[in-house]
């Protein structure tokens, strides 16, 4: 792939990126969130098209109008979400969409052939799973191996693995590495995308680093090291930081004690959040930040642990419980969890506090409208009127509606999960100003963000997460993109 460029509305995702891959080679593709890794691989897999640049396979230029063409050329992608069907067995999944048939025009499934060939392929990469096992009986790791078998049974010569180990325990990851090495020996070219730099040190023959949509550098096998990778990822030389928890300035408003989330049930998290403070939570996608936020705010599962507000342990079993105690969440998925898009600005803003506008269960409509108009003006929500459906608003204004919803309740703790994702620059600044004001007024603010600049600029302290655990808490004076990244890829 040479000089690949791709722009999306408002951003240049890839700027003249070069990438090459040889048979029998494992190349790691590394970079921060948003560095362009996924975009580059989507172009290679024919899922999206590059604006400019060329792709050559075996020296021949190729065009890839769709994913089918990529598959024909022997390119297969193993996604983070495995695209397999739970109720089919292993063979059924391996042959999904190209089942062998028998019986001529009757087109009956040739199950015997499916099973035999699947078993053969499984044996080839040294995996012992019966081809008749229903997929749902397999572990996440085994399902991933089925995806790989599916790819190689389609004669894939190039295999792209996107964060294959993000949901696997480390022992299963080892098994996966063995399989990948086996494939390398037989000449398959493998692109390995991962945030786990340790794995890359172990596995990769070469590491290609992207930064802000450009080539940041390539490391040969012997040159791959954790520090070199981080340095290329953030673009500067990095001082080694020693993670340590700062002594809290005063009594904590919110204390999280030994909390375990549903996604990382083996990890206990403890964290203090102080009055009038913005606590940033940094980390890469999948580090467990959202799960932590949702557990605190009562919307996500909490396996165990205490949430202590002003020294009193709270019984939080639902969002309603958390809200009653003044703990509110601005969720990451705005359209699904933040707003009821078809309803009006007015109806959305008053949703959590409707009873306060009601007498005998009936809503006082003028009081409601007055309050909403005031909130909307305060937050400069740009909408045709407060009766406009939230769906018609821009992302930034939708986010302000979510904020207005909570500000009316005067929350003690407000948790923002990626509050400025998909928000334009102007609204972003306003949301930052609001976060600051909230903290100054005495609220405890938690700011989860993948936007490094945002985290560094807006936080008083930063907790960094990796693989479900907090790998360090940095005071403001020591918050730099480098120090955070160092902890985030631990």
């Amino acid at each position, binding site marked *: 792939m040479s000089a690949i460029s791709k722009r999306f509305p408002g951003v240049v995702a890839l700027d003249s990126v070069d990438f090459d891959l040889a048979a029998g080679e494992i190349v790691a593709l590394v970079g921060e969130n948003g560095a362009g890794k996924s975009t580059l691989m989507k172009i290679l897999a024919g899922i999206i098209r590059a604006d400019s640049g060329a792709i050559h396979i075996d020296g021949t230029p190729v065009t890839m109008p769709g994913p089918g063409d990529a598959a024909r050329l022997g390119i297969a992608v193993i996604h983070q979400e495995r695209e397999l069907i739970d109720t089919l067995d292993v063979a059924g999944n391996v042959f999904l969409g190209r089942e062998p048939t028998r019986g001529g025009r009757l087109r009956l499934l040739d199950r015997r052939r499916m099973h035999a060939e699947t078993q053969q392929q499984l044996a080839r990469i040294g995996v012992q799973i019966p081809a008749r096992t229903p997929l749902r009986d397999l572990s996440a790791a085994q399902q991933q191996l089925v995806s790989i078998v599916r790819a190689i049974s389609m004669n894939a010569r190039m295999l792209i693995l996107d964060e294959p180990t993000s949901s696997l325990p480390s022992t299963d990851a080892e098994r996966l590495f063995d399989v990948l090495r086996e494939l390398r020996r037989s000449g398959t070219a493998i692109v390995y995308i991962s945030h786990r730099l340790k794995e890359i040190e172990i596995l990769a023959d070469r590491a290609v680093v992207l930064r802000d949509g450009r080539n940041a550098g390539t490391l040969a096998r012997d040159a791959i090291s954790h520090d070199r990778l981080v340095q290329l990822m953030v673009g500067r030389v990095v001082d080694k930081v020693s993670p340590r928890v700062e002594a809290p300035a005063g009594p904590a408003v919110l204390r999280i004690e030994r909390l375990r989330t549903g996604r990382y049930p083996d990890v206990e998290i403890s964290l203090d959040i102080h009055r009038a403070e913005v606590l940033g939570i940094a980390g890469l996608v999948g580090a467990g930040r959202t799960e932590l936020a949702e557990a605190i705010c009562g*919307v996500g599962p909490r396996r165990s642990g205490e949430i202590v507000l002003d020294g009193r342990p709270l019984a939080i079993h*639902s*969002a*309603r419980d*958390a*809200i*009653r105690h003044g703990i509110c*969440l601005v*969720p990451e998925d705005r359209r*699904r*969890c*933040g*707003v*009821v*898009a*078809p*309803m009006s600005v007015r*109806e959305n803003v008053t*949703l*959590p506090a*409707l*009873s306060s506008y*009601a007498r005998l*269960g*009936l*809503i006082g*409509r003028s009081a409601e409208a007055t309050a909403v108009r005031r909130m909307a003006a305060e937050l400069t929500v740009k909408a045709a009127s407060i009766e406009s459906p939230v769906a018609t608003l821009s992302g930034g204004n939708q986010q302000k509606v979510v904020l207005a*919803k909570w500000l009316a309740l005067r929350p003690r703790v407000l948790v923002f999960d990626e509050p400025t994702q998909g928000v334009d620059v102007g609204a972003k600044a306003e949301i930052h100003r609001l976060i600051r004001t909230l903290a100054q007024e005495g609220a405890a603010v938690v700011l989860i963000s993948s936007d490094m600049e945002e985290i560094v600029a807006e936080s008083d302290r930063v907790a960094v997460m990796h693989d479900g655990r907090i790998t360090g808490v940095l005071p403001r004076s020591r918050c730099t993109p480098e120090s955070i990244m160092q902890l985030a890829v631990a």
Partner: protein
Amino acid sequence: MTRKDLGVLLLFVVLCVIVAAASPQFLSVANLQNVGRLVGTYGIFSIGVGIVIMTGGIDLSVGSICALLGVLLSMMLVEWGWPAGPALAAVLALGAGLGAAHGFLIARLRLQPFIVTLCGLLLYRGAARYVADDSTKGFGTGEGFEWLRAAAAGHVAGVPMPFVILCVIAVVAWLVVHRSVYGRHLIAVGHNEEASRYSGIRTIRVVAVAYVISGLLAAVSAVIIAFYTNSVSPASHGNFYELYAIAAAVVGGCSLRGGEGTVLGIVIGAALLQVLRNLVNLLDIPSSLDFAVMGAVILAGAIADQVIARRSRRSLVGRR
């Protein structure tokens, strides 16, 4: 009044004008009374089912509830000699109770509404036939519960009672759905249950209460219908009522995806269906075509609605 309501109302008025023009009988007092009674009867349980549909659910059990409660009402009054007051209270409580059971299974245990209420449809029909020993139950000469019969099947100043009751219930339902905290939560849950939960709404309770309302209104209808027909044959009484209710709600602007719909729309939808049936009657269309006419008109309405919605969406995108 929403634009959708206006559309349904317009369709309703046009239909009435056509029927009136084609058959002068349509506007006769006797016919209007008859249609009014039917609109009242069907409108009441349609509102209940419509509220369930607003949550994104469905209630298929109302017809069988009418049969079961009709049979039980007759037995309480005639065979067991219960006074009218307690009998009425028991029937209403039973209706609400069955609705609560549906609500528990659907909202709390997360069973699918279609399955739960389909089982209700089968169960209560079977129960009705069993308790009645599959024989028709009636109300005899009606001694001792005259007031209840009058309240359910009589007239006030020439207006049939079912229609009067529908008007009262519609006003209350309008307040509940369009003016109360519960109604707002109902619509929010119907549109987006996840965001509602994140906003601290007790979504389980909101959904369950919708089924209680549906069960209760089915019970009210059951009393009215039982006294109107004056005989309850458990195998056929109330057959297809759930489909009338769903049709009324959908014609009236409810979306089966939830979140959409108005009480006024449902009432007009229910009225529209009865006028259609009346049309089949008055215009000497073979009554065997009754359902076919209804199906054709509803389908035409749904297609028109979809076409209009798509066009307005396109113009919205165009403006941007």
